[in-house]
Structures are given as structure tokens and as C-alpha cells.
């Protein structure tokens, strides 16, 4: 029986609805990327070749790959035990830990970088200076991406029938053998998919490298930004961006192939740990994971109150004083600018992403629809820096110069947030049983009333989650925004990165105060999302 009859307004309606996101992507993604290609090739093949044969380019590419690989391995080492413990055992504070591990993933990269600067920077709390070393990057990336592996592997483990492992045990396998020969092969595809995503995120990571790299570490992203902002060499930047784009597309193809679909409904496989060995193992992993997630965040807050080795609220005072600047940056203005752009970008991302999700959920899955679906995810895979550079090239200089309108940042952030919105909304819209609307109709209620009293309340948690994700993503967006923000009107992450790069104890404290504020807003949003349970919707 086809359950979609009521909502099916035919292919005309679907095409109209899907036209919104497709046009949005064409104008804001394809045109900018085309601009990158055009500028990259503007000096003829020679210019591009010049960049490609430059030994420095390959050094940068090699370093980018190396740090991404090391970061992925580090993430797996920490995340796999955490995922197994969270999915498999019942312990006090489990729900809290589950929500906590999601927090770093949505933390603005600049805030995370600031946190690790405070921990392992030149005057770091831990007394070792890893800024400017690859290990600082690896740690920060591990922190950021823990949630990806924990969530994906956790979801895979939760859909496994525990009787599978029991059956293996009854066939004479030891617990370890049962895990290695039954459970692991079943969840390995998920781990591979999660690793590919983490690798991709680390490969295109920008904010962390820019802030923690101390100007010495150069990934492709950072090099693209330096070529644009410091060297003013747009063709070189575009050539690097092209190289980046090719690498990312190649990786996306691999990820697409390796993507595992976790089928089956989730069951709670958890049980209380038994015996002192198991209890101490679980306790160790739980405490370790919690510390790992919480420490950097607490350190930022602490650091914001430290000025020249003394406790002081000077940093916060600067932050909350409208019009007051430190090192030519007005933090309060940045707060307001951030909120303004994020709200506008979230609204835009919800409208466009919502239209996309409705269109995708309305139709039967065909090749055409699947390609639209894949296309909508492109901005997620492409580096934000490439998007930012492309928008700058396409709309940020004559004949079309939108830089001073503030509109460009809103558009870029909406573009970055839109795939998240689509990912969250589409499965929910698809699984929404339209017969509920039919029930309302045969009970004599108008379609409008049914939408208001049935569809809206049932879909509201999902929509809230999408809004929350979009808001968190836009609030923390750095890679694209840094290209498009005017010096006079930066968003909070851009302001933080500028403050951190400048001397002055109060300036640095203000940077940490701003980071703390950004962190708190994001954390409130994310924990709120998780409370709505619908946050279980896997976002990648």
C-alpha cells in the first residue's frame, strides 16, 4: 500500500520544491567553484603547473595528508573504547556522557584551537608547548572528531542483535573471539565510514591549524588562505584550491563507496559491568573520556579570568563593553554581528534545506533524486575555505561586490549549514506517516488544521534539532567567513582568531572570554538537542 498518496502533489510540485535548493547550490556553490577554476587557470596552464611543480606545494600536501592520517588514528584509538563502553554498559551518568561527547563536534574550531592553545600552548597549563607541532593538531582534531566515531559506531553497535554474540559464545567462542569474529566484522564498515569522514574533516580542517599552527604549520587550507590574505596571489590560491577540490572529490568517492547503511532497529544492548576488572575498565574509559571532553572547555573558561598571571575579569569587561576595543577589535560588536548573521543564515538554511528535505521525502527514490541528494551534501565535503575563496572571487569584487552588505557571509554560512539541515530533516520527513493526516481528514478536520495540530507537533522536535544544528554550525563557521568578513565587522570566531594572534594580556583574556561565551551558547544548543532525543539522527 502506498502511504504517500495524500502528500503527493505530483512531479510538478516536487520539481518546484527541489528547484529552490538546486538554484541555491548553483548560484552559491557551483558559480563560486567555477570562479576558482577560472582564476586558477587564468594564467594559462603554466600558472597552475607552476604551483603544481613547486616542491613547497607537495610539502604542504604531504603534511596535510600526514596530519589527517595521524589525527584519524588518534581519534579511533580514543573513540572505539568509548563507543563500546557507552553502547555496551549501563553506568551512572551514561546519558550525560552521551550528550557530552557530541559537544566537541559542534564546538567552533577556533574555540577548540583556543582551548588547546591554553592547554599546550607557549604558556599552556600542561607546561609543554606543542603549538606549531603536528601533535597539537592531532590532539585538537581528535577532540573535535571523537563524536563522529562514537556516534556512528554506537549506532552500529546498538542495531546488533546481542543474540548474535551469544550464539557465537554457545558455539564455543571466547568473549574476545566472539567480538573479533562476529561483532567486529559487522561494525567494521561503520568504523571505516566514520574514519573516512574524520580523515576528510581533518584534511580540510582550517581554524585549528590557523590558530594552533603558529604560522609554521601549513596545510592546503591554510596555504590557500595565506596566498589570498597575505600574499594577495589569487591565482596561486585558486590553483591550490583546485588541487584541494580534486583531493576532496577523490576522497568523497571513496567515502561514498564505503558508506555503510546501518539497518535494523536499535536495541539497548547495555548491561551493568560485572566483576572488578570490567568495572574498573568501564570506569577508566568513562572518566578518561569525560575528562578529555570537559578539560579543554573548562580551561578556556579559566583562562578567560587570567590576566598576567592574576585572576581578573578584565577580559570579560572588554567583551561586555559596547564600543570598547582591544587591539582594534570590538568583541561586543562581534557578538552582535555573530548573532545577527547566524540567525539570518539559520533561517535561510532552514528554508532552503527544508524545501530540499520536503522534495526528497515526497518522491520515490530514483537516480535523479539520489543525485540531487548527493549534490546537496557537496558543501559539507568541500572545504569551507574553497567556498569562501570562491564566493570572494565570484561576488566579492567588481562587477558584483556584496562584501560590504554583510549578505555574503549570511549566504556562505547558510550554504555550509544547509547539508546538516537536509540530513536531519529528510529521514524524519520520509518516515512521517502521512496516514496521520488522512486520519485527521476523515475526522472532519481541514488540511490546515491537520498540519497545525498533527504534523507540526510530531515534526517539531526534528525541526528544532535542525535549527539547533544550523545555528551551532553557522555560529562557529570560520573557514568561509574569514574570507568574507570585512575588517570592521568580524563575527565572533573571526574576532577570536584575530585577538589570539595579537599581543597584550587583556586582549588574550578577552579572546578567551569570547571563546567561553561561544562555547556556552553552542553547548546549551547541543545539549538541548540531545535532550530532544531526535538528536539521535546521525548527521553525516
Amino acid at each position: 500500500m502506498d502511504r504517500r498518496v495524500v502528500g503527493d502533489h505530483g512531479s510538478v510540485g516536487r520539481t518546484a520544491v527541489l528547484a529552490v535548493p538546486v538554484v541555491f547550490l548553483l548560484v552559491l556553490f557551483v558559480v563560486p567553484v567555477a570562479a576558482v577554476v577560472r582564476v586558477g587557470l587564468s594564467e594559462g596552464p603554466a600558472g597552475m603547473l607552476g604551483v603544481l611543480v613547486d616542491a613547497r606545494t607537495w610539502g604542504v600536501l604531504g603534511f596535510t595528508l600526514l596530519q589527517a592520517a595521524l589525527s584519524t588514528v588518534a581519534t579511533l584509538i580514543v573513540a572505539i573504547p568509548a563507543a563500546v563502553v557507552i553502547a555496551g554498559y549501563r553506568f551512572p551518568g551514561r546519558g550525560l556522557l552521551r550528550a557530552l561527547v557530541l559537544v566537541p563536534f559542534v564546538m567552533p574550531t577556533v574555540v577548540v584551537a583556543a582551548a588547546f592553545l591554553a592547554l599546550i600552548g607557549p604558556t599552556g597549563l600542561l607546561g609543554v608547548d606543542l603549538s606549531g607541532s603536528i601533535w597539537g593538531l592531532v590532539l585538537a582534531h581528535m577532540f573535535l572528531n571523537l563524536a563522529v566515531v562514537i556516534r556512528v559506531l554506537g549506532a552500529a553497535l546498538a542495531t546488533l542483535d546481542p543474540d548474535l554474540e551469544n550464539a557465537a559464545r554457545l558455539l564455543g567462542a571466547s568473549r574476545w573471539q566472539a567480538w573479533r569474529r562476529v561483532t567486529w566484522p559487522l561494525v567494521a564498515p561503520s568504523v571505516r565510514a566514520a574514519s573516512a569522514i574524520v580523515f576528510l574533516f581533518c584534511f580540510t580542517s582550517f581554524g585549528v591549524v590557523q590558530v594552533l599552527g603558529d604560522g609554521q604549520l601549513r596545510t592546503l587550507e591554510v596555504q590557500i588562505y595565506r596566498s589570498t590574505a597575505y600574499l594577495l596571489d589569487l591565482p596561486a590560491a585558486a590553483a591550490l584550491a583546485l588541487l584541494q577540490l580534486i583531493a576532496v572529490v577523490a576522497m568523497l568517492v571513496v567515502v561514498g563507496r564505503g558508506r555503510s547503511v546501518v539497518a535494523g532497529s536499535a536495541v539497548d544492548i547495555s548491561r551493568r559491568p560485572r566483576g572488578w576488572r570490567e568495572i574498573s575498565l568501564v570506569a577508566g574509559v568513562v572518566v578518561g573520556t569525560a575528562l578529555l571532553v570537559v578539560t579543554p572547555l573548562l580551561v578556556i573558561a579559566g583562562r578567560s579570568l587570567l590576566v598576567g598571571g592574576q585572576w581578573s575579569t578584565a577580559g570579560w569587561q572588554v567583551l561586555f563593553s559596547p564600543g570598547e576595543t582591544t587591539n582594534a577589535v570590538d568583541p561586543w560588536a562581534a557578538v552582535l554581528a555573530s548573532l545577527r548573521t547566524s540567525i539570518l543564515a539559520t533561517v535561510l538554511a532552514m528554508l532552503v534545506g527544508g524545501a530540499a528535505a520536503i522534495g526528497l521525502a515526497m518522491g520515490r527514490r530514483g537516480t535523479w533524486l539520489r543525485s540531487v541528494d548527493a549534490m546537496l551534501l557537496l558543501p559539507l565535503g568541500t572545504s569551507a575555505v574553497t567556498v569562501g575563496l570562491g564566493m570572494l572571487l565570484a561576488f566579492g569584487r567588481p562587477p558584483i561586490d556584496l562584501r560590504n552588505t554583510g549578505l555574503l557571509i549570511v549566504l556562505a554560512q547558510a550554504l555550509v549549514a544547509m547539508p546538516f539541515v537536509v540530513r536531519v530533516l529528510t529521514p524524519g520527513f520520509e518516515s512521517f506517516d502521512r496516514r496521520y493526516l488522512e486520519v485527521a481528514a476523515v475526522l472532519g478536520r481541514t488540511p490546515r488544521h491537520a498540519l497545525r495540530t498533527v504534523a507540526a507537533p510530531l515534526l517539531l522536535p526534528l525541526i528544532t534539532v535542525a535549527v539547533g544544528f544550523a545555528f551551532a554550525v553557522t555560529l562557529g563557521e570560520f573557514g568561509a567567513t574569514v574570507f568574507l568578513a570585512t575588517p570592521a565587522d568580524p563575527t565572533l570566531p573571526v574576532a577570536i582568531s584575530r585577538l589570539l594572534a595579537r599581543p597584550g594580556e587583556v586582549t588574550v583574556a578577552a579572546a578567551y572570554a569570547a571563546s567561553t561565551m561561544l562555547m556556552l551558547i553552542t553547548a546549551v544548543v547541543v545539549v538541548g538537542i540531545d535532550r530532544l532525543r531526535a538528536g539521535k539522527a546521525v548527521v553525516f
Partner: protein
Amino acid sequence: MLRLQAVTASYDQPVLRGIDLNVARGEIVCILGPSGGGKSTLLRAVAGLVPHGGLIEVAGEAMVGVPPHRRGVGMMFQDDLLFPHLDVAGNVGFGLRPADPARVAQMLDLVGLSGFGPRGVDTLSGGQAQRVALARALAPQPRLLLLDEPFGALDVVLKAGLVLDVQRVLRELGMTVLAVTHDRQEAFTLADRVAVLRDGTLVQVGTPDELWNEPADMYVARLVGLSVLEGRAYRPEQIRMSAGGPWSARVTGRTFRDGHHLVSARVAGETVVFVCDRALEPGTEVRLAVT
């Protein structure tokens, strides 16, 4: 109360090919047919949930262009489809304008769930949920109630009791009902008249008696549970084991019901059911005769 004339509907291909049927006020008519035979489509056409051709009249009023919410037709679906965000009372009262708590309580009494109003719908058993769905469908006093396999999702024991309960409620209210099912026992229990739907057309409409005693064709005969031997339909008690009987059969199964052994056997590609005084093991070869 309900008049169908040459009703057609199609998805990718025709599903209903000209249905004619009248349901009198207070009558319960049940459409019997295999899954995928267009039964649900017919109900959805009456409810206005799918586009259709031909004439559908409710209480003498043509339903052409009338949207579902103005048809005054209630419907109960195969799954209870209770709104998960509302409690029991909220569900039952959903179709009531203005809100009418007294009517909600009255409907819950009627289906035997007095006091269930404040309960969450996820706390109900399958049978209770269907009762709430029935109360919800009946609360706005529809002119006609449509039942789409309302007991399909329930287990056998629960179903038997619930079918009788529902029938009692419907009779008490004098409700006009068009139901569909693939279960002949359910149809025979519930309905005044049964309509057999095959490939989008009604092949026979009649009382359970008429269908059982005078099936229009062998398809109807098989559907109502008769055995077909050489183009003729027989009731189970008309077939017996006989050493010199004309048909050789291989036993395929047996069940014990109400003091009789009911044995099913294959005869020349046809499944027959007969009454027997002892249990026969599957695989046994027997000879059958008719009386």
C-alpha cells in the same frame, strides 16, 4: 446511505474496474478479497483519499469534488494510527468541534475503556488501541464508517473477542458500515452482507448464507472455504473418506475444531477440507467420496 455506481480507480494500472454497490442505513457490508485486490483503494475512494471515477453518493449527496474532511465519513485504519502526541482523550476528541469532554467519556464507555482518557497512547495494548481508534472514528457521529482491515494487526485470540465487541457497538449505534477484510471468518461474523472483490470487480454480493450455499463461481466457493471437486463446490461435511471413493487424496494437514477433526488434503491440484472422525497424519493416502 451509500451508493456506488461504476466506481473506478487506478494507480499505475486500473485497480477498481467499475464497482456497483449499495449499503442501506444501519447495514454492515464487508468486502472480502485477497490482499492487493483493490479493497483498501475502494475505501479510500469513498473517504476521498484517492481520486476515482464513477459516482459515489453518501446519504443521497454526490461526493464529486468533496474533500475528505467534508464527507461526514469516518474511517478506521489497519494500524490504529493514534496520534502519539495526544493522550487517549485527545485522540477520541480530535474530531469534535467544539471540544466535548462528555462525548469523549461516553465514547470511551461505549468501547469499554472508561477512565482511560488521561492515559498515553503508548501505554495501550493492541486491542485497547484499536478500541480507542474506533471511539475516535465514531465520536464525530459519521454518517458512514469505513473499516480498513481493522483487526488485521491483532493476534487471533484478541481478534475473535474484539470483532464481536465492535459489532455490538456498531449495532447499538445503528451505524452504517463498509468494511474490508481478507479474513472470511471476520467478514461472516461482522457483516449483514458480504461482497467478494476480485481483480477490481465485485463478483458476488450476498448474505454469508447465500455465499456459502450458492457461490457465484468456484473462485467465490474457494474464498468462502468450500472445497472444489470437478467444478462443483462442497461443504466439509459433504466429503467423507470411503475406500471405494472416486478420488485419491494425500493428507496435507489437520486441525481439531469444536469436536471434529478437520482434515485438508490435495486432490488433483485442489485443496479440499473434510470432516473426519479421527486424526489423519499428513502424508496419508486416502480415497474420498461425496454425499
